[in-house]
């Protein structure tokens, strides 16, 4: 079954890569052929994923290559099949969405290139997750980065898109260099690049080397995932890409980095690792989560707001994985399995609702041709479906019950609260502090998405663009609809997801917890310690809410006896309200900016142009607030300055005089002769 699905997937994607390039003439054919083939490929991918999850023994195939050290080998164990499933489901939904969205690019950009790159992107991501050989993993990884770069710079006539693309390309390449170092150190130990050898290396790695491997993997995969110090490229690159691509970038591509981390830490380095590793991952996760959401709050470009939220959610995922690693280092296998399972569950959830939100933002962008939220408003009336799906995404990402975000964030909370079983005192305290930062992040995310949804969709349209917006085409709606349905399903039916995840965490941590995680016949989740410790059941909550709302409705009607409803102007102290009097996104977050000003270091600029006659009546006011790009200022700019300064100083060695060049040769000759003599 898996081979068949694999073949379908492969033919689908390769068709998708070739077809658009061959049909030169009309963009619609290119669009349909590319995204149709992508959909077929994704279906194949889903088959492979499901097959892999249910199969007992991992499916393995390897083709030797003529290059030494490189074998094109693929292995489908539960972990990779989960991620293949993730990529394919999101890929399928986005492919359907793209059919409508790409129509906006006809005539302006080459649809053929966009379509074939899209398919190449999906194929390379699937290969990254399936690769079973270090060299082949690096090859697929670089291919993925290269193809995603060309997708990000589709609209390369804009200067900031080019800058964002280049910044992204350099950062991923730096990341790849570190990943390459990780595999090099494994190669040094085991003598071959195959993951099989990494997994069963004869003697465990010496202490110093395994720490180097840990740090190199964290930096390498962290650069792609966007953990805090290395996240600066993400809010540039993801918004710059076309929305259906940024949905895949943010939703799925950074998850391949999480896959990499889990593979290296849990699969290769093996369970007994020092305690401080888990703590470092936890700390990085907590900081990324908090700073990610804080910068997201200040962002008024909808897509970069979502990009910052990716940084936040990666932080939350790392919190789960970090907690898992800490438990593992203290030998609490079942708790480690819980932490890892929570992290993976949140990975799936984030992929789905972040993808949905970006598709929603894309729909808004295609109608209003701007990404600035201050120019949206009242779109819920003209675009009801998009509003509905965006609302479902917003509820899920803010982790409100009974959504899927809530389930995974609840599991991560529980794994952090189980810290009292750890013997070491410091860890006992650190994990709850991590939980407090997660709580703060969760609620700030709620505020941020209330702002995003409220300002964009509700009240009156603030600009002419927003007024002319119309509902998007059917394909875009179905794309979003599929993801919204999956979002709700993941929320209400954790009992389906948990056993599948358990098949992954059992081999990695050595403890199967599906049994005691699902109690009351799978109705509710109880983390490991049984029901009286803690349990939540989103289906039950959903049912109770579903019962109370109609009862309240009937009760209100019966008690009141009237159903009359009158529409009238909103009360504006007697003035008739204009869109300019509505609350703006900047206004909405001003209290938050003021409370956390030490982190933001805002600079406010207010210029007022007074009337000639009197100083008390202003003709025009220009207000601008800017948040200090801390990391860019103190981390990236110095590096760039240093390199260009070095280049300027070194320029002098090519000074143009023939005598100088002759002297170079003369001195080198003398030195080497002395050396050889």
């Amino acid at each position, binding site marked *: 079954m898996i081979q068949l699905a694999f073949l379908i997937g492969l033919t689908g994607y390769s068709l998708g890569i070739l077809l658009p390039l061959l049909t030169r003439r009309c963009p619609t054919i290119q669009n349909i052929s590319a995204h149709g083939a992508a959909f077929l490929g994704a279906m194949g991918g889903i088959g492979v994923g499901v097959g892999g999850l249910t199969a007992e023994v991992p499916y393995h195939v390897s083709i030797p290559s003529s290059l030494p050290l490189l074998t094109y080998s693929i292995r489908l164990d539960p972990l990779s099949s989960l991620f293949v499933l993730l990529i394919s489901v999101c890929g399928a939904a986005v492919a359907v969405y793209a059919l409508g969205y790409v129509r906006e690019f006809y005539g302006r950009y080459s649809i053929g290139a966009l379509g074939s790159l899209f398919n190449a992107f999906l194929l390379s991501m699937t290969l990254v997750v399936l690769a079973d050989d270090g060299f082949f993993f690096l090859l697929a990884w670089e291919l993925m980065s290269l193809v995603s770069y060309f997708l990000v710079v589709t609209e390369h006539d804009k200067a900031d898109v080019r800058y964002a693309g280049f910044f992204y390309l350099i950062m991923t390449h730096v990341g790849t260099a570190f990943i390459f170092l990780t595999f090099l150190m494994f190669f040094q130990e085991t003598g071959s690049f195959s993951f099989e050898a990494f997994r069963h290396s004869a003697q465990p790695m010496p202490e110093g080397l395994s720490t180097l491997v840990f740090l190199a993997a964290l930096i390498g995969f962290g650069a792609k995932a966007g953990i805090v110090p290395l996240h600066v490229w993400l809010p540039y690159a993801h918004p710059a890409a076309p929305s259906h691509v940024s949905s895949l970038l943010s939703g799925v591509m950074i998850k391949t980095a999480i896959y990499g981390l889990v593979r290296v830490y849990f699969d290769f380095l093996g369970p007994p690792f020092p305690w401080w590793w888990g703590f470092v991952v936890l700390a990085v996760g907590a900081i990324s989560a908090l700073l990610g959401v804080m910068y997201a709050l200040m962002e008024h470009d909808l897509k970069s707001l979502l990009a910052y939220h990716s940084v936040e959610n990666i932080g939350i995922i790392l919190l789960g994985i970090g907690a898992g690693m800490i438990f593992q280092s203290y030998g609490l296998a079942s708790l480690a399995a819980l932490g890892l399972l929570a992290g993976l569950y949140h990975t799936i959830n984030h992929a789905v609702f972040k993808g949905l939100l970006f598709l929603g933002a894309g729909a808004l962008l295609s109608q209003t041709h701007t990404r600035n939220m201050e120019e949206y408003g009242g779109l819920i009336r003209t675009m009801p479906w998009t509003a509905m799906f965006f609302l479902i995404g917003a509820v899920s990402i803010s982790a409100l019950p009974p959504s899927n975000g809530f389930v995974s964030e609840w599991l991560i909370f529980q794994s952090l609260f189980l810290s009292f079983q750890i013997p070491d005192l410091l860890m006992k305290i650190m994990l709850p502090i991590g939980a407090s930062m997660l709580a703060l992040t969760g609620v700030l995310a709620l505020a941020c998405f209330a702002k995003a949804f409220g300002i964009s969709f509700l009240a009156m349209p603030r600009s002419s663009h927003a007024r002319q917006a119309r509902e998007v085409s059917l394909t875009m709606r179905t794309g979003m609809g599929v993801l919204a349905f999956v979002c709700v399903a993941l929320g209400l039916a954790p009992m389906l997801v948990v056993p599948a995840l358990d098949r992954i965490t059992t081999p990695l941590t050595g403890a199967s917890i599906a049994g005691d995680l699902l109690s009351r016949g799978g109705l509710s989740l109880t983390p490991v310690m049984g029901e009286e410790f803690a349990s939540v059941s989103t289906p039950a909550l959903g049912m109770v809410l579903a019962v109370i709302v109609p009862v309240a409705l009937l009760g209100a009607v019966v008690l009141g006896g009237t159903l009359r409803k009158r529409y009238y102007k909103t009360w504006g102290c007697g003035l008739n309200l204009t869109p300019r009097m509505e609350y703006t996104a900047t206004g909405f977050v001003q209290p938050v900016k003021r409370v956390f000003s030490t982190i933001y270091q805002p600079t406010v600029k207010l210029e007022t142009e007074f009337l000639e006659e009197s100083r008390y009546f202003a003709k025009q006011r220009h207000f601008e607030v800017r948040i200090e790009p801390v990391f860019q200022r103190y981390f990236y700019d110095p590096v760039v300055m240093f390199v260009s300064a070095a280049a300027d100083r070194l*320029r*002098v*060695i*090519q*000074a*143009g*005089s*023939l*005598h100088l060049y*002759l*002297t170079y040769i*003369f001195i080198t*000759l*003398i030195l080497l*002769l*002395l050396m050889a*003599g």
Partner: protein
Amino acid sequence: MGMVRPDIGSQMVDLCAALLLVSCFAIVAQRRLSACVDMFALQSAFLAATAALVALLTGIHHIYFAAVLTVGIKVIVIPRILKKVVERLNVKRELEMNVNIPAGLLICGALVILAFFIIRPIIPLGFFLTRDSLSIALAILLIGFFTMIARKKAVTQVIGFLVMENGLFLGATVAAYGMPLIVELGVFFDVLVAVLIIGIYSHRIQDAFDSVDTSKLSVLKE
């Protein structure tokens, strides 16, 4: 060839090589351009003499042919071309230098010591007759290289290059009794064409930059 006892033979070869080295120093010490060209002609003559001597002592005839070629090309043809270039370019006699003469001579002395130090371990490998003049050949090569760096004029760079060629030719005759004939021919042919091309270049540079001072040729920066 038993006519001359071997040690006297090697002393005579060393004498000729020493004369060659002295002429090298003379070229470095020259201030005027035309004197440089004459000194080069003299050096080539010494070189031909050495080659002839080696041919005489070892009886390998094709070295005679090489010696005759040296006289023909390096003593007569090339100096005449260079003289014509010097007149035509009416470049003023005075030679601008990167390195003044005393410092130049000091460096050449150091180069000779260095050459001896490098070649010393290889000496026992060579033929008894000519083995210790291999280090002189390397010294001449290095001094030629140094003159190219020390002098600014394009013509002096050519002369430096030709001194290096002389060093090479001496090395070939001394180290291995001359390369196989076709190789000798090839080397001579290449040297001749190289000088021709350099001559053409200096004409064009003179027309384009109306000066042959190579330090002016530094427009192409990093």
